[in-house]
């Protein structure tokens, strides 16, 4: 594991107090009826060459966070400090024009390989688009670079003129990958890149991602709800619940001993292959609460098996409990929660 190296290397992306609130409006005059805190006061750092996983249930704000980092959505508040080429820039302070120049440094891989490729463009145009719009290459040079990229992601260069309808899901995801890599970005946000693929294809795409990461010296934010994928590919993990980051830890630590009860329930819900004991189906009790109407105190307390009185009143802060281990729980130290390795 390359944990030690990554902690020593310099930060690439520092997110401070990132907030994205959506107001719910109603009626003819758009009166504000409430606010959804999709991303609420999120702080984290991603180091160069590091893979960070972001897990959480559907609707917890993972994708919103990813889109805020790209400024596809404009965050309500916060800072995103991006350090590249010995320059530090707050992405949120850029105007439209400056932002377009920075787009090429952060690229995205999408969840759905079917809707993320324009059905009316052949592969060569899809992969070459970032190069073209950023004025990096054109004409024959563009095609040459697209050829290289297509070859790198393991597709046949003879198929350059094919349209997306001619490719399978896995192949399409490779096209999406080639497109993201085309501008040689230091940072990639992968928004559930494997969840729309079947398991055998998932594995090949993940391996490809790992290879490319080494080859291109990429940092990645890997958004997923699949813990086994995280285990496979990420050095650190962030767990999100209802717009909050509730736990941050190295992957190994998190899997062996989680600090937040929510992480424990997530780990419990992972089905195990080769487990010979009695199979118990597990789902976290209750439904995730309505994000427009978050419970008082700790957001997780209505579903938490260890909840006490203080949890109903006080919203815990994200505190560092051990080196590199953060958790948003009043009892992170007292509870000894079960991971997957400890059975």
């Amino acid at each position, binding site marked *: 594991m390359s944990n030690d190296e990554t902690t020593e290397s310099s930060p690439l992306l520092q997110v401070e107090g990132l907030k994205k609130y959506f107001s719910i409006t109603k009626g003819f005059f758009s009166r504000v009826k409430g606010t959804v805190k999709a991303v609420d006061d999120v702080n984290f750092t991603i180091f160069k060459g590091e893979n960070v996983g972001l897990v959480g249930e559907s609707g917890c704000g993972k994708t919103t966070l990813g*889109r805020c980092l*790209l400024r*596809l959505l404009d965050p309500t508040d916060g800072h995103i400090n991006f350090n590249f080429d010995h320059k530090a820039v707050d992405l949120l302070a850029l105007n439209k024009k400056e932002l*377009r*120049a920075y*787009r*090429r440094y*952060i*690229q*995205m891989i*999408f*969840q*759905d390989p079917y*809707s*993320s*490729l*324009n*059905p*009316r463009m*052949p592969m060569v145009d899809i992969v070459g*688009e*970032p190069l073209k*719009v*950023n004025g990096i290459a054109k004409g024959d040079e563009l095609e040459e670079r697209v050829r290289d990229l297509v070859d790198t992601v393991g597709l046949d260069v003879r*198929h350059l*003129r*094919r*349209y997306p*309808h*001619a490719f399978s899901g896995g192949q399409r995801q490779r096209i*999406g990958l080639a*497109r993201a890599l085309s*501008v040689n970005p230091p940072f990639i946000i992968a928004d559930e890149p494997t969840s729309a693929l079947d398991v055998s294809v998932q594995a090949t795409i993940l391996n490809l991602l790992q290879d490319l990461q080494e080859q291109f010296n990429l940092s990645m934010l890997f958004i997923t709800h699949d813990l086994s994928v995280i285990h496979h590919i990420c050095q650190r993990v962030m767990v999100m619940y209802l717009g909050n980051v509730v736990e941050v830890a190295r992957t190994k630590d998190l899997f062996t001993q989680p600090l937040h009860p929510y992480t424990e329930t997530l780990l419990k819900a992972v089905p195990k292959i080769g487990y010979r004991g009695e199979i118990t189906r597990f789902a976290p009790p209750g439904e995730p609460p309505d994000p427009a109407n978050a419970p008082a105190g700790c957001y997780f307390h209505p579903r938490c098996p260890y909840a006490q009185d203080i949890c109903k009143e006080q919203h815990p802060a994200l505190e560092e409990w051990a080196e590199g281990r953060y958790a948003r729980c009043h009892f992170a130290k007292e509870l000894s929660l079960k991971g997957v390795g400890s059975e």
Partner: protein
Amino acid sequence: MKREQKKDQNSRRELSAEERMYMASQWRLMARRFFRHKIAVSALAVLGIFYILAIFCPFFAPYGKNQRLKGYIHAPPHKVHFVDESGEFHLRPFVYPHKQELNEETLSRNYTPDKSEKHFLKFFVEGKPYTMLGIIKSRTHFIGTEKGKFLLFGADEMGRDLFSRILFGARVSLTIGLVGVFLALVLGTIMGGISGYYGGKPDMLIQRVIEFIMSIPAIPFWMALSAALPPTWSVIMVYFAITVILSLRRWCGIARVVRGKFLQLREEDFVVAAKAAGASESRIMFVHMVPSFLSWIIVRATIMIPGMIIAETGLSFLGLGIRPPAVSWGALLKSAQNVQNVLMYPWILIPGIFVVIAVLAYNFVGDGLRDAADPYQ
């Protein structure tokens, strides 16, 4: 040696059918699916014939559009014969001339075929001189008789040949739909695009305007507008005024759907991907968004044209659209407002048949296009 090289090149150029399919753009796939739709293709052929007839109507029509034929007031259609009285077969079809008699009691004109004489139909006969498309001067007509007259669909109350008038009317009736739909599409796409892409206040304003226009009942709206046209306007000005009036209402529906398409596409992953790649707003709009619903717009336009044709026919039938001396199918049907006329001279309803055929053909073509444009069926 050289030949072998050439052969090699050829085989490389010849892609397999499968490979061609994979390299086919959406447009080519759409065309391929459309041409598999037999009814749609035949409807397209029918429309093609109609438009050719309409464009070159002075040539195809045996007579001028306001040419009165003496002694043929309300004459019934001529029957086209191949076999004469004596049972003899003629390869060239012929008509018997009509003899007009006035019924003294009812004062109605009765026509009886005079079987003693045969008028053979001929292609490219000399007739009344005309100017076609403003430049071609000629006296040759596509079909006609050298002696006597040939009235395929009979004549109207002024002795004008209905077939010729239907062809001249097609010019107005078939193009008013095209021009009107084009105007409606341009207006609808621009307004809907602004509404959907920018949202907020412009969206609010445009949507309320649309709701207002849509809440006005169509027929009174059209009637009021066309009644307001100055009677001194020339035929061409009235024609354009009517198209504008018709499209003033139609753009609303298009604007709404275009707005919806923009809203939907704005969130589409490939548009987000283009944005993340750093593409400019105009590139996102015109390279990614518009082509995605262009096929839909074409389908929609095809389906809208018959509505326009019917609307024009309706307005002209009510006397509010195209007015004499201009002819359109609706204006021709105006004489069928009188039940007595319909009973006595049923052939004046023939323009209605043309309206039905044109509308059905457009609907079939639209159907075929829609099936072809929707790849997920």
